[in-house]
């Protein structure tokens, strides 16, 4: 019983991070209809920025956890946001009115460029960051217990706060309404006075910022990373976005959590080696019954 609970908690943590990254895939797809294959590598870049910021802070003798975490989050999110903005500007905007496949290929190219650039600049070996937060929270339930490191508690809180803030921005603010308008009818949005190119840039910045939040959290938790970490987690987050219904923001978050839970429960209760098989099997099963994902809407080709 407690192993199920334990894996539920682990899965929720993992899933919340998948959700954060999936948001970037789903928002970009929603607004310009392309899969940003470089998104996983934006996450990877944020891991390196996290390490650099941590090193700088420790160089200046700043060690208090709240200060360190605040600065790391802030700087990593801002710098990664600049990466997101630049990638859109350089690789996708010039192809705005070309065929659908052109930006997809450009995205694959951007992904290779980021991986190789980081590999050259930072070396191919795996890098590490020190543990910032020690200790474990243990809850006794009957005879057994469920335990969660403080770091994982922090991940849960930070990830769900991130999603909450994003949902609020998209649902309730003028910026969010402009994003939704651009997504629903770009031409009409421009006729109403919205600079749609700028909104598309903002969406890339938001996606990158969410990936950066995930990057900081996972990097601090796992402690090590290399230039290739973006690939696997990118594929997982993309799967989460498809599972939840690509283009749907709550769908991406839900898809992330479901995927995380599925992986954790399967590896805890059945077999760790086949957890990915189970996760992708789940995706296939859901797509058979709901081809547009859990919260997605059937695609209508616009003319």
């Amino acid at each position, binding site marked *: 019983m407690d192993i199920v609970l334990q894996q539920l908690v682990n899965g929720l943590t993992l899933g919340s991070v998948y959700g954060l990254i999936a948001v970037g895939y789903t928002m970009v797809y929603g607004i310009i209809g392309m899969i940003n294959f470089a998104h996983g590598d934006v996450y990877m870049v944020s891991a390196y920025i996290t390490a650099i910021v941590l090193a700088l802070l420790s160089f200046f003798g700043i060690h208090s956890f709240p200060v360190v975490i605040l600065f790391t989050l802030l700087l990593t999110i801002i710098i990664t946001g600049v990466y997101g903005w630049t990638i859109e500007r350089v690789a996708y905007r010039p192809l705005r009115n070309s065929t659908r496949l052109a930006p997809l290929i450009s995205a694959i190219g951007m992904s290779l460029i980021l991986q190789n650039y980081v590999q050259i600049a930072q070396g191919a070996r795996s890098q590490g960051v020190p543990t910032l937060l020690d200790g474990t929270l243990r809850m006794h339930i009957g005879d057994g217990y469920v335990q969660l490191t403080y770091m994982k508690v922090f991940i849960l809180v930070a990830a769900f706060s991130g999603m909450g803030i994003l949902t609020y921005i998209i649902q309730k603010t003028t910026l969010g309404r402009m994003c*939704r308008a651009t997504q*629903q009818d770009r*031409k009409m949005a*421009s*006729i*109403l*006075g*919205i600079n749609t190119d700028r909104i598309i840039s903002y969406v890339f910045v938001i996606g990158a910022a969410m990936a950066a939040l995930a990057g900081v959290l996972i990097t601090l938790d796992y402690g090590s990373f290399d230039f290739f970490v973006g690939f696997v987690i990118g594929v997982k987050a993309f799967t989460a976005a498809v599972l939840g219904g690509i283009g749907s923001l709550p769908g991406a978050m839900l898809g992330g959590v479901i995927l995380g839970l599925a992986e954790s429960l399967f590896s805890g209760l059945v077999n760790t080696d086949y957890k990915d098989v189970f996760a992708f099997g789940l995706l296939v099963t859901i797509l058979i019954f709901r081809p547009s994902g859990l919260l997605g809407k059937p695609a209508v080709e616009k003319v």
Partner: protein
Amino acid sequence: MSNVASEKMLEFKDVDVFYGPIQALRQVSMHINKGEIVSLIGSNGAGKSTLLMSIFGQPRASAGQIIYCGQEITKKSAHFVASNGIAQSPEGRRVFPDMTVEENLLMGTIPIGMAHADEDIQHMFNLFPRLKERRNQRSSTMSGGEQQMLAIARALMSRPRLLLLDEPSLGLAPIIVKQIFSILKDVSGTGMTIFLVEQNANHALKLSDRGYVMVNGQIRMTGTGQELLVNPEVRDAYLGGH
């Protein structure tokens, strides 16, 4: 009204527009004076909607000039044009399907900001009580007529100097058409300039100071609303020979 000192608000000078190899507008020249109601009538496919959209550069004029309040806007971006006081209720309504009525109305405030939003939304609810009943409903769940009202109200929310309306009567019950045209008359009384594209020539010309008739992408005739209403050619082609 038609003898107001004529100051040109919008002017087309020899405008050509192409869709790929197909020419949609040929050498179109026309103008709208400040404070006027001008209508453009013509059959399906004559190029009326293309003319309205070309003001926003979608599609862009390949030759000629479009001048708004003395400034050439032929090559300006759509959001620039909108920010300078031109609003459009476009062909096909194009309300945002997954937004509520109220959110759709708020989208109209982009050029002027949210300062008058509450007051203006109340004003729209007075003009179109139906929208008030539906304020929290997603616009895709509404009837065509309700969506049409929403598109017009959304355009009015930006307090435009020039209001462009593409077939506001399309698909509406006659009684609603009458209501909408009377609202347009009121709005025009507040000093707003209105450019109306219509197939429903009878209503449009009665309301208008002046009108233009478009055939195959060219301006074929022009005159005051009254002149066009009694013109035999117009009567035969667009008024169903009443």
